[in-house]
């Protein structure tokens, strides 16, 4: 095998599949799919460092499932090429759904392994704000989570919350996890000497700042407010996101060397470019609240939610004790505003001994259409917020002193669905009514305030900045934008994702490199219902409800700014992580990348289609083992000590799971072993044929058991087929080694109490039933054609014999050729055979292929079709019928013509030609008609005259 791998004239396409074949003998065009290996074959040195860090454990097919292997693996130690492969079904749905590409399956896999510091590194790889996104995310990952098809999605957001809190409690472990594992210098950025200005220290701006600093650029962030964090700091109330939690993430970015200037509003963004900054990023967010222009809307107590929450977050509280507050809207911001107002008023009331406020949310649709997250709505309801559905404001009514005292409203009803698919609310005529109100808070959206941008930067009518979708560059060269400033009010993850995209483009811009194009679409791993059922059958689905997050009781939380939701405990987090179905197999945690010295790993690899032109093809697709579950009398699967010959082969191999020791499942060497021949072979209930090499390997295994353990061995055989050179002598030697041979089919295996296995069978020599109680049973199972043999057969035009293996051209005289010229067979693809026979047939197939290629020309059969061009009516019927494209239409002469080299002589065109212009040589219509006439001619009549036709020219 090594020689094959090293041979200069052999290109080995491993991990590949033939997808299409066209052409004919000597001129085949073959399409080969080279499956993404995710490891560069030419760079990987197969050192195996990656094996230790991979958090995934799957059944090792090479060891017949007797051991596990990581997702990054090599089929077996001597595999050629020796480069590793990553077993990946695609990007996990949770990662695919996340705008930041967060490797959720990755950090969940690491949590399962209790590698929390490593999990934190995986999180930080894509998300600079884990403290935020573990608490307030809209978690689209959970919406897409495959576990949702089983019961409820994995609590992905709360697992991130747990890891982040753990990480900030264990700074030393985290520092160690983040240490460069291969080359510390290589991971340090080279300073580029370029300067970038970031306007706005929100999630988008700080993400860009971090990414650019890590690339070696000098970054200054300008922030108008006295605090950093943007909407994360002044839009999200403290009880959902404590400011010190946020500040930890911000400090981590600043510590990388970002220059942050607070209280520093930028009035002219473009001016920054003239002041020595090579590129500018606009991340100004959407901080201008929207109100409906009704009468009284500009009264002092009618304020936008953006302004209200900002003031509250900065510690400026209005007097809400005993007041009536109405929040208009139905989104998360409406919930936040209502609960914040409730807390302010309650705290004031408790301090000063007054009445708590009455807070109500008025929404123009119903709770079913409300965009707020379910948990937020539930918490608001628990806290005593009153909800009024189908209500819309008409006028804010002031008292004599121009303070708000009422809100005049109208009732709504739901009409036809609008563009968003939600039913549009329409006012009910004459339904107006009045609500008492001291404060009206408008939570119906917010817009960017692009006052700092000159008119040269193109904006939409909604004041959002227009950018290129791949580079996030605005209409001004060198000015980039992302986040709410571009999308209008959106989620933190959207801003982070767009920030990464903008930073990639800005880095290219600053280095004068070509701007990045659209990101490649990577296939998403999808778990179908069948796959889930399989996982369930294999016991891979942990039955456990979704983890519950602890919440502070209502009375405790509405009187303070304490965080409502607590973190999961370590045990809860590990148990929750166990619920993950690991859709992608490889979790993309990226730890293999961190330890790979030669940097051979590329998780972005995609399948490649290779087009090959070849003269001949050898099909050597081998066999599969037959599954002994199909004959329940052998009790396969009921005891780990009942195994197939292949499993025993791994058990006795020095490279196998026990290092070559023959042990039962208890770890003890067996005292007695039974080997049953012909399980699934020579059996009308399974395969009728003899699998041919089992007798010999069973004898070898009997010898190994005797030799290594000295155990008693019973061989239940029907006939001992020791047909090859030296084989009979081996059989005789074994008889001398003291093995008990029982002639007769082993009929049944019973698992006894205490684990012993009782084998019953026929002893034909003694004419009675034989029985043996043993510690281990080896089933010499049948082999069969691979499950996808039909696909290979139709690709190469091969026939299959009754047993399912590929049919040779003639069972005695042409055992290597097939009925398709230029396609040859070798090995078990053609039928069961042992190694010497396989090597022999393979040599023959190679010689026949070489003979074909060496000649440089092929002899074709004379049975081809010809067109009588005088009769051809140019209808072109034949052209579409020919499976070989052998007929072409000659426009100048208005006739069809057959290419004799391509025609295989099937004659389907002949049967279809309405002008009877086409003739199949040796199967002409006249010849067949004469045969029919001949059949019915009486012997005494004149013989039928068969004209020997001269057809064609």
């Amino acid at each position, binding site marked *: 095998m090594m020689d094959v791998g090293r041979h200069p004239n052999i290109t080995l396409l491993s991990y590949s599949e033939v997808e299409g074949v066209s052409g004919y003998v000597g001129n085949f065009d073959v399409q080969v799919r080279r499956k993404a290996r995710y490891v560069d074959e030419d760079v990987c040195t197969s050192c195996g460092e990656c094996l230790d860090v991979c958090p995934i454990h799957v059944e090792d097919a090479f060891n017949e499932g007797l051991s596990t292997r990581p997702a990054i693996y090599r089929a077996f130690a001597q595999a050629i090429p020796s480069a590793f492969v990553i077993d990946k079904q695609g990007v996990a749905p949770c990662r695919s759904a996340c705008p930041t590409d967060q490797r959720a399956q990755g950090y969940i896999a690491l949590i399962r392994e209790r590698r929390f510091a490593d999990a934190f590194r995986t999180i930080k790889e894509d998300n600079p704000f884990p403290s935020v996104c573990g608490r307030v995310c809209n978690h689209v990952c959970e919406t897409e989570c495959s576990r949702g098809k089983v019961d409820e999605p994995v609590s992905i957001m709360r697992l991130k919350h747990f890891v982040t809190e753990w990480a900030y409690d264990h700074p030393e472990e985290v520092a160690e996890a983040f240490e460069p594992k291969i080359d510390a210098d290589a991971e340090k950025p080279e300073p580029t000497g370029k300067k970038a200005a970031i306007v706005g220290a929100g999630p988008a701006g700080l993400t860009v700042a971090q990414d650019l600093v890590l690339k070696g650029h000098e970054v200054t962030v300008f922030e108008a407010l006295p605090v950093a964090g943007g909407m994360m700091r002044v839009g999200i109330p403290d009880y959902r996101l404590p400011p010190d939690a946020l500040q930890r993430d911000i400090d981590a970015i600043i510590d990388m060397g970002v220059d942050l200037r607070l209280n520093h509003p930028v009035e002219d963004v473009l001016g920054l470019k003239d002041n020595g900054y090579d590129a500018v990023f606009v991340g100004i967010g959407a901080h201008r609240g929207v109100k409906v222009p009704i009468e009284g809307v500009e009264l002092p107590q009618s304020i936008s939610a953006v302004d209200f929450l900002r003031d509250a977050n900065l510690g400026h509280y209005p007097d809400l004790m005993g007041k009536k507050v109405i929040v208009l809207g139905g989104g998360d911001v409406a919930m936040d505003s209502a609960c914040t107002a409730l807390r302010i008023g309650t705290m004031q009331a408790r301090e000063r001994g007054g009445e708590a406020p009455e807070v109500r949310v008025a929404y123009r649709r119903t709770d079913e259409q409300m965009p707020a997250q379910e948990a937020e709505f539930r918490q608001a309801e628990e806290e005593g917020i009153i909800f009024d559905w189908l209500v819309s404001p008409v006028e804010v009514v002031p008292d004599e002193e121009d303070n708000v005292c009422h809100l005049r409203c109208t009732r709504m009803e739901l009409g036809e669905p609008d563009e968003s698919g939600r039913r549009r609310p329409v006012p009910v005529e004459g339904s107006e009514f009045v609500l008492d109100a001291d404060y009206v808070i408008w939570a119906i959206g917010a817009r960017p305030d692009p006052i700092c941008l000159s008119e040269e930067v193109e904006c939409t009518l909604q004041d959002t900045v227009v950018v290129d979708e791949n580079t996030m560059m605005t209409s001004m060269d060198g000015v980039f934008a992302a986040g709410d400033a571009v999308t209008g009010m959106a989620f933190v993850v959207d801003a982070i994702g767009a920030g990464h995209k903008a930073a990639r483009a800005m880095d290219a811009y600053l280095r004068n490199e070509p701007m990045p194009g659209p990101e490649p679409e990577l296939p998403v791993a999808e778990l179908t219902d069948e796959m889930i059922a399989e996982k369930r059958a294999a016991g891979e689905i942990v039955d456990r409800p979704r983890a519950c997050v602890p919440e502070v009781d209502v009375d405790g939380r509405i009187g303070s700014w304490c965080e409502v939701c607590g973190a999961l405990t370590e045990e809860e987090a590990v148990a929750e992580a166990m619920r993950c179905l690991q859709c992608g197999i490889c979790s993309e945690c990226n730890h293999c990348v961190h330890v790979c010295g030669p940097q051979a790993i590329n998780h972005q690899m995609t399948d490649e289609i290779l087009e090959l032109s070849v003269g001949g093809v050898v099909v050597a697709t081998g066999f599969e083992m037959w599954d002994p579950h199909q004959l329940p009398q052998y009790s396969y699967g009921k005891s780990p000590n009942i195994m197939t010959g292949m499993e025993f082969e791994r058990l006795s191999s020095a490279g196998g799971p026990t290092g070559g020791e023959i042990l039962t499942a208890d770890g003890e060497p067996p005292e007695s072993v039974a080997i049953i021949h012909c399980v699934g072979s020579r059996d009308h209930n399974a395969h009728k044929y003899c699998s041919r090499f089992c007798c010999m390997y069973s004898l070898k295994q009997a010898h190994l058991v005797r030799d290594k353990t000295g155990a008693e061995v019973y061989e239940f055989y029907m006939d001992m087929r020791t047909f090859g050179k030296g084989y009979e002598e081996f059989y005789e030697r074994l008889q001398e080694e003291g093995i008990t041979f029982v002639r007769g089919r082993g009929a049944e295996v019973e698992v006894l109490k205490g684990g012993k296995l009782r084998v019953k069978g026929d002893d034909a020599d003694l004419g009675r039933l034989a029985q043996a109680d043993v510690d281990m049973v080896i089933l010499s199972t049948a082999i069969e054609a691979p499950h996808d043999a039909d696909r290979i057969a139709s690709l190469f035009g091969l026939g299959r014999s009754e047993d399912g293996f590929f049919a040779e051209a003639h069972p005695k005289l042409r055992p290597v050729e097939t009925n*398709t010229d230029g396609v040859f067979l070798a090995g078990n693809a053609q039928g069961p055979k042992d190694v010497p026979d396989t090597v022999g047939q393979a040599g023959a197939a190679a010689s026949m292929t070489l003979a074909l290629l060496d000649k440089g020309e092929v002899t074709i059969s004379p049975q081809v079709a010809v067109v009588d061009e005088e009769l051809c009516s140019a209808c072109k019927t034949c052209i579409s019928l020919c499976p*070989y494209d052998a007929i072409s239409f000659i426009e100048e002469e208005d006739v069809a013509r057959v290419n004799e080299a391509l025609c295989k002589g099937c004659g389907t065109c002949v049967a*279809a030609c309405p002008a009877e212009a086409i003739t*199949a040589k040796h199967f002409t219509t006249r010849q067949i008609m004469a045969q029919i006439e001949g059949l019915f001619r009486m012997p005494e009549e004149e013989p039928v005259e068969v004209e020997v036709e001269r057809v064609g020219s």
Partner: protein
Amino acid sequence: MSDNGNGFEPRIVGFLCNWCTYAAADTAGVSRMKQEPNVDIIRVMCSGRVDPVFILKAFAEGADGVIVSGCHPPGDCHYSTGNYKTFRRMPMVEALLQQYGIEKERFHWGWISGAEAPKWARLVNDFTEKVRDLGPLDWKRQLQSKEE
């Protein structure tokens, strides 16, 4: 051999494709499977070569039954899609024969792979028995009397 009482023995013509059913018939013979002697085989390279005219010709010459058999769709056809053409043409022939007053039971078309020799032998025996029960077709004489 059963008998319909008057000693009638049907004549049957089989058009078999070279690669599948012909190979099956060959194997059935070599394996000495017992078959009625009533079927005469005409080999064609592909069942797609069978011009509907061949079938009419066989009946016109005096056949009491006709068999057309090729490779199993999908994928078994040596010429990749010849059997699909048979699949489309034969129902048409079936309809045509009925219009001529020939019972559809006298015409069998289907698929037998090279590995299905027993299936071929069974078809020969079953079909012969069926046609024997139907009695002689004698289309040749009917045609001649019409001509006169």
